[in-house]
């Protein structure tokens, strides 16, 4: 028989009324108590109760379905892997609210990037009436049932110890792809947390290789994909056999909800993606050859230098001049260089577009150079990066919307800003990781976008950028093999 828990609280109060120690109470309030209890009753194990508690919120059908699936089929442990912009936060909020209403969760810990903490607190309290607070080290965690903090803070002492002392019923981790490496402190910190319920939110569960997904799932449900060796074998087999392939996909989807734009009931605008090939000028090409032949101890350094030159001489100069033995000759030649073919092409593109554009670059030096170069060409721009405080981010967004044609963002600006009023994205530099591109595109291709979205991926011929391109294609293949289809990132290629 099932364990029964019975409270004797009422009984004590009743005795105190019988022996006259306390007065009897009000009949109207008695009836109201019954009425309210009846209205708040959970009539069924299944179905979302939280909807009736949230009449001001109108969740989309795919969000309701996702929350229901996580609770009823995955029993509260899942990766929410919707494509960017479909409302993973809403899904997580629905799940959290449902568990709180059902009394299965009292204490919740939410880990998010520092820049998104206030957004989480606001959404939970405004949209879900969940009294969440941003972590403040001055106050004890005892008094705060729903707390939001950054992963970087949480993993460190003394915060990690304070968290371990608490008994959280649910752990929610936003941008969970930051846990892809099992050797990091943050991974091990999360591994040590008890996860009665756990939600991992990421649009990009695989970034560079399949084992990232293995470690993410092993964090959520150790053993679900077997041991590392077993998984490795299964994955190699899946490359060659359709049967193994299906099996692996099914295992993954037992713990993962992934809505794609195409299978929501929303009319999405189209996404047009193209690669814009660029040719170096002879001077640039000569420098590139020199850089490629430079004698460096670490081959990674060479890749970095090559990549930087493909971006701007400013980006390269910063790294070169900081080297232990700066190659003076190259530095001198670099200063002579007057043409940046990629920047020129960018200006042409912007003039052609004749509308709002976001440019993503990987380098701060390039970012500043581009602003100056655009200015010389009569193009107004604002700079943006993820380290900005929320007020500054909002201000920059406002400036971009009202006063500038271009927003130039660094990689770190890729999260937590929504710019649906713009529909053109130039990927000035290509990252190694295709999911970063997806995150960038997600800033504009999301709910509220009314125009078709145009993506331009700039790549210089006969350089490292071509190699990056082919690598990106390979990584996208792995993702699609295990997780499922991806929206266009590099080109609108047709599937075989």
């Amino acid at each position, binding site marked *: 028989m099932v364990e029964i828990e019975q409270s004797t609280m009422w009984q004590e109060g009743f005795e105190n009324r019988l022996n006259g120690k306390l007065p009897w109470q009000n009949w109207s309030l008695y009836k109201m108590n019954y009425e309210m209890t009846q209205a708040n*009753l959970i009539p069924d194990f299944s179905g979302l109760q939280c909807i009736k508690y949230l009449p001001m919120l109108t969740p989309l059908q795919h969000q309701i379905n996702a929350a229901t699936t996580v609770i009823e089929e995955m029993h509260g442990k899942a990766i929410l892997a919707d494509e960017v912009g479909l409302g993973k936060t809403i899904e997580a909020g629905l799940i959290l609210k449902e568990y709180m209403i059902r009394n299965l969760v009292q204490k919740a810990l939410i880990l998010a990037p520092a820049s998104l903490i206030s957004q989480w607190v606001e959404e939970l309290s405004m949209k879900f009436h969940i009294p969440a607070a941003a972590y403040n080290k001055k106050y004890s965690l005892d008094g705060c049932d729903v707390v939001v903090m950054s992963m970087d803070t949480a993993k460190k002492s003394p915060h990690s110890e304070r968290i371990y002392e608490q008994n959280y019923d649910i752990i929610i981790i936003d941008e969970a792809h930051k846990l892809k490496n099992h050797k990091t402190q943050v991974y091990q910190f999360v591994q040590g947390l008890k996860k009665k319920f756990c939600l991992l939110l990421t649009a990009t569960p695989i970034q560079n290789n399949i084992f990232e997904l293995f470690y993410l799932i092993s964090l959520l449900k150790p053993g679900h994909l077997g041991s590392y060796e077993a998984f490795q074998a299964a994955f190699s087999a899946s490359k060659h056999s359709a049967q193994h392939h299906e099996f692996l996909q099914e295992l993954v989807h037992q713990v993962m909800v992934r809505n794609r734009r195409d299978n929501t009931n929303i009319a999405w605008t189209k996404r047009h993606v193209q690669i814009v090939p660029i040719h170096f000028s002879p001077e640039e090409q000569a420098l590139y050859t020199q850089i490629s032949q430079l004698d460096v101890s670490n081959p990674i350094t060479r890749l970095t230098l090559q990549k930087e030159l493909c971006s701007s001489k400013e980006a390269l100069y910063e790294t070169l001049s900081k080297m232990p033995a700066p190659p003076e000759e190259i530095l001198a030649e670099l200063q002579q260089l007057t043409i940046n073919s990629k920047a020129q092409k960018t200006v042409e593109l912007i003039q052609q577009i004749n509308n709002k554009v976001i440019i993503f670059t990987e380098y701060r030096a390039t970012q500043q150079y581009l602003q100056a170069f655009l200015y010389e060409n009569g193009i107004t721009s604002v700079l943006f990066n993820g380290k900005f405080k929320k007020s500054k981010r909002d201000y920059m967004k406002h400036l971009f919307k009202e006063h500038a044609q271009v927003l130039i963002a660094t990689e770190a600006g890729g999260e937590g800003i929504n710019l649906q009023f713009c529909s053109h994205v130039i990927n000035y530099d290509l990252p190694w990781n295709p999911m970063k591109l997806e995150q960038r595109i997600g800033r504009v291709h999301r709910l509220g976008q009314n125009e078709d979205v145009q993506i331009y991926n700039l790549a210089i011929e006969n350089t490292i950028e071509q190699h990056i391109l082919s690598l990106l294609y390979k990584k996208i293949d792995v993702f699609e093999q295990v997780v499922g289809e991806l929206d266009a990132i590099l080109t609108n290629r047709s599937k075989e």
Partner: protein
Amino acid sequence: MIAMNSQQINQFLHDFFIETGCDVERQEELLHVQLSIEMDKKIMNRPFYWRYIEATNGEPNPAQLKLTTSLQRGQGEIIHFGSPRLQQIYRVVEEFGAYVQMYEEADVTASQVLLTPWLAVNYKVAYCCDCTKEVLYSFGLNLMTGYMVLDFHSSLIQKNLIPTKPANGFCVQHIIAPQRGLERIQAALNEIIVEDDHTWANEAIVKWQREQRILDYFYDGVDDKPEMYEIEKQALQERYGAKIKMTIVNGGLFYLK
């Protein structure tokens, strides 16, 4: 069960403030409330203010609220089913509406009316594992005969009940003491629960065992299992361990014709 609509909530709020000694003025969906000191302390979350007033013998100034049950943004704090203010008021109602002793009003023309003692107890029973379901049971026990009925509350609210014994009413002394009555009701509830369908608990055990096997497989061959293993095992128990929670919502003594 359907949650309360905005009209019901409006009535609920109105009645609540009246019954707790606050002043209420209603303009359609809008409620202007002057809180009593006691209710200010209960629902305004400002203990420091009240400590200060009491320490300095200051003039207490309980808050005024402007509430609306309309979902259109306009005047007043919007109150709907699930809004924090309503939950807070629910907590107060739970505290102040837990124990009553009531008498059925007798026909004034009758010389004497015999009133029989009944014990009413309303239970909330929650079935919990990785999900929950709740049932409300309303018991009535005749403290003279031991006769027990279910759904007692709905028959009580049909009656004309008053908090003081009517002048011509004569309360018969109970044979079953209320404490014993409570035990009988508890036993009856246990019987209902035992008879109930518990597929949910069996299903939870199956899910639990399956996940335990997966976990064990992950640590197969590891002699000294790491702390992580124990943490995960504990999490499985907390998630799938089936439990039945019984709480008494309210109850009391009723002297009925």
